[in-house]
Structure formats: C-alpha cells, structure tokens
C-alpha cells in the first residue's frame, strides 16, 4: 500500500511464550514496530478462532520486536498461552496515545497493579533514558502473582545510583510491604508527576491521594470492538467531553478524569 497510508495490521512472529507467574505469561514477538510511538500504547491481537481482537499493552519494544505480558482470564488469553515460538499473530500496531513523557517533570512516580505492571516497564526505561528520577511501586495479591520484579531490579542497577527506586507491595504481605500500593507512598511528597495502570479501585485511590498535590497520567481499560477509533464502543466521559479509550486514551490526564 502507498507510503502515505499506515499499514497497522502487522504480522508478528512469536519468539518465546513463557509462564512467569500464576496464570501470567510473557510473550516476545518479532516484527515491525515503527508505528509504536510511546510507552503505554497497546496492540490488538487476532487470536485464531475468536471474532474480536484482544487488546494488550506493550511492555517493552525495540526496532525489531516487542514484549507483552498477559494474564489468562478467558478463552482468548488461554489459547494465546498455548501458542508456540515460530507461530505468528496478526496485530494492529501502535494503538492509543500512550504516556506523554514530555508533560512529565523530573521526579516521576510509576504505579502498576497486577497486569497493569507491564506498561510501567517501558515507561520507566524511557524516563530513565531521559535522565529523570523514577520511583516504581508495583502491587500484587500474593507471592505467586508477582512477576517482572527482577527485570525492574536490573533496570535499577543499570542506571546511576539513586535515579531509580523499586517498591513492591502484596496484599498478603508475602513479598515486600503488606497491603496496597497506597501503603508504599511514603517519601513521595516531592514527586513532580505520577503515572499509573491497574484496576480501577487502585487508580481511584491514587487519584484521591495525589489530588491537589501532583498531576497524573492514568491508563484505563474498556471492552473494545475495534481498538482504533471506528466503533465508539469504548467511550468514557471526561471533563473535556466524551473520549474513546482506544484512540484518545488509554492514558488520560488526572485533570481530565471523572471518577
């Protein structure tokens, strides 16, 4: 197709697909990633045998491929988990706005809850590369649900001392602080911004905690018909009008959000 038009439906080849926690899988895929422009964007995956595609956040990417992390919750993700290296998937690429790092100051708090964690990895990497200080808080239910903490730790050791700090909370206290991510926020009074992805109650708690203190960017989920702005299936009401989670989001500024 002509160069002025975007070929968003790309064939990605599975390089690996492995279980990394209870019901949670990490998949690496090879293919064109030039349409990905920001951390927090997602891809919409055609899983053979299912009519609608499955939206999954991009955890990390480079010029030759990307990583996703997904939880098995239904038949689509179950089938995805049994796919093998060498098989391929058609994916709509570079969907959504992603996090706006240019709007962030130099001391950013990143909060990921459960499978809301993956986009925080790409975002942390990006912010660190820009020379910003990053505090990452990850929340899980229990020991068996925890994943990707070692990757975050590697990131922490790869940058100069003090520019990154990692905190983990589990509801049952089996790893890190006992409780929710909001129990891990001491010392964050001076942050310039926060970014978050996770369950709605977590986003709501953070929104309340930082209201009037720091601006945030929050990533939302909604059931999607298309993922690229055509069906208006994924609308939410914001202070600046009706918005599509798939196209205007999934990331929205705290100043725009109505809870």
């Amino acid at each position, binding site marked *: 197709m002509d160069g002025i038009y975007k070929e968003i439906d790309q064939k990605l080849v599975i390089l690996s697909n492995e279980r990394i926690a209870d019901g949670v899988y990490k998949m690496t895929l090879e293919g064109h990633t030039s349409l990905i422009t920001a951390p927090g964007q997602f891809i919409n995956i*055609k899983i053979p045998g299912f*009519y*609608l*595609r499955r939206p999954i956040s991009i955890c990390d990417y480079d010029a030759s491929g990307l990583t996703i992390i997904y939880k098995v919750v239904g038949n689509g993700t179950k089938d995805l988990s049994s796919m093998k290296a060498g098989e391929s998937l058609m994916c709509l690429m570079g969907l959504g706005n992603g996090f706006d790092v240019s709007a962030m100051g130099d001391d950013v708090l990143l909060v990921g809850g459960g499978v809301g964690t993956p986009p925080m990895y790409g975002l942390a990497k990006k912010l660190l590369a820009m020379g910003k200080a990053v505090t990452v808080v990850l929340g899980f239910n229990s020991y068996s649900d925890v994943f990707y903490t070692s990757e975050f730790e590697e990131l922490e050791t790869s940058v100069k001392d003090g520019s990154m700090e990692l905190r983990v909370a589990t509801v049952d206290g089996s790893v890190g602080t006992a409780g929710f991510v909001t129990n891990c926020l001491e010392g964050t009074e001076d942050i310039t911004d926060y970014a978050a992805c996770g369950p709605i109650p977590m986003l709501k708690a953070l929104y309340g905690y930082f209201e009037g203190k720091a601006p945030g960017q929050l990533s939302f989920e909604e059931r*999607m018909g*298309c993922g*690229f702005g*055509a069906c208006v*299936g994924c609308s939410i009401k914001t202070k600046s009008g009706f918005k599509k989670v798939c196209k205007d989001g999934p990331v929205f500024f705290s100043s725009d959000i109505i809870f």
Partner: protein
Amino acid sequence: MTDIRTELSGLVLDNPIIPASGTFGFGREFAELYDINILGSFSFKGTTREARFGNPTPRIAECREGMINSVGLANPGIDAVINEELPAMREVFTKPVIANISGFSVDEYKYCCERIDKEEQVGIIEVNISCPNVHAGGMAFGTSPEAAAEVTEAVKSVTSKPVYMKLSPNVSSITDIAIACESAGADGISLINTLLGMRIDIRRGRPVIANKMGGFSGPAIFPVALRMVYQVYEAVNIPIIGMGGVSCAEDVVEMMMAGASAVEIGAANLTDPYICPKIIERLPVLCEELKINKLSDIIGHAHG
C-alpha cells in the same frame, strides 16, 4: 475486466462496497489507513438531533463469528456533524456519501433530514428506524408498518434526496415493513440492522453488556440477512442495499444475487480495517472466475 459499477437511485457507484453506519465513523480513522475514495460510498455514523454519549459501558460483547454492540447511537449531534464532521470528511472523501439518520420521534427524523438535505455531499439519506419511539412506549419505529410509513412520509416531505429506509430484522414480517415504506414513498431499502442479542458472563452470572442486550452482527447473521434481502426483493420494486455479516467478495456476490444493488459492510471493518480494499480488489477477479461480465447483471439473479 468485469464492470463492477452499480447504481442506486441514479447515483452511479464505482463498486458496490459501502462501509456500514457505525463501523466507519466519519471516515477519518480509515483515511489514515487507505485511500477511502476507492469505496463505492460509505454510510456515516447514525446522527441524532442532540449529541449522545450512548449507553453505559461495557457496550461490546464477543460472540462466535460475531459481536454484540449497545453503543446506543453515540454521536456528536446534527450541528456538530454538519459544522465539524462533514467539512473534515470532505478533506478525505470526495464522492457522494450516505447520511445515516436516527431519531426518537417522527419530528426528530424530520428535523435531522431537513438539515442534512442541504449538504451537497450527501447522495442518499439512510433512515435507521430501529430506534425506540419515545412517544409510543419505546417500541421501535421499524417494528410496525404504520410507524415505518409515518417516518418515511415525514422524511420524504423535507428532502429531495433519495431516501433509503433501513429496516430492523427484529420483526415477524420484514416484507410488510418494506412494502409499507415503499408505499409511503421510500426510494430504496437498506437491510438488515442488527439482531437483538445477549451474552452472560458465566463467571459473574451477569449480562456482559451493561444494558443487558444489544445488536448482534457479523458473519453469524449472514444467512438471516441474505434471506431477508431475498424476500424483500420479491416484495418491492425499489433498490436494496444488502448488509449483515458480509465479510468477503463471495458474500457480496451472494447478496447481490439475492437482490441487493449494493452491499454494506459493518463489523468486518472492525476486525480487519483493510477488509473493504481487500474485497474491492478481489471482486473483479471473482467475477471473472464466475464468468460475470457486468456485476449489476447479477442483481436478483437467484430469483430464477
């Protein structure tokens, strides 16, 4: 090469492929993906008098070979459509477009059609009568021949553009409704809209869709849609735009053989944004395989 042009009420289309209302917005998202001027035309998002958020979310559910939507006519309202969407659309689409109009009262249909009548780029007005009539206990206009005729007449009185009435399949006799529309002056018939459907999330034991039910569409409904197009073709003498589950060039030919002069493609645009260009490319090849010299010759061919 086969001539794949077709005609709707004097409007000659380069091909019979028309993205269906509600699956193509106002064309902008797709204009980034391909040159949308290759389409026969497209039917823009159902427009009402006021801006509407639509129904609460979740309003999309997956089905085997299909989907349910209860988007609920979310749209920016006729003023914003005329002042913002249509000027933006003109930048990316230069052919006559199909204006899809909805309403919750006869007056609302009339008002919207009167406004849209003045828009030069609108080639056809497609009137969606699957909406509930708020003045008649919420029963959809499209479920009674009298109400369907009343809307047709009201709309015809305010526009000189061809009016295509878009029928709901959720009726006991689709031909009665089509005949009522034709008698009331309709220039054509579009069918089918979505079938009322439902899914339950068995883990929660609750409907998937916030509004409980919604419109079922996609490949699974193709045989129902085809049957209705076939029946309506025998009942009326005005052109038909056939739709419901069309997903490939073969489906297009089948719909046309049943009696459709052109074909709309809905849900398939959502799962494969390039489906329309793919079908337009494949259609002449398929025609050659089937030894069809002129695509419009096959309209209603299955009626023997």
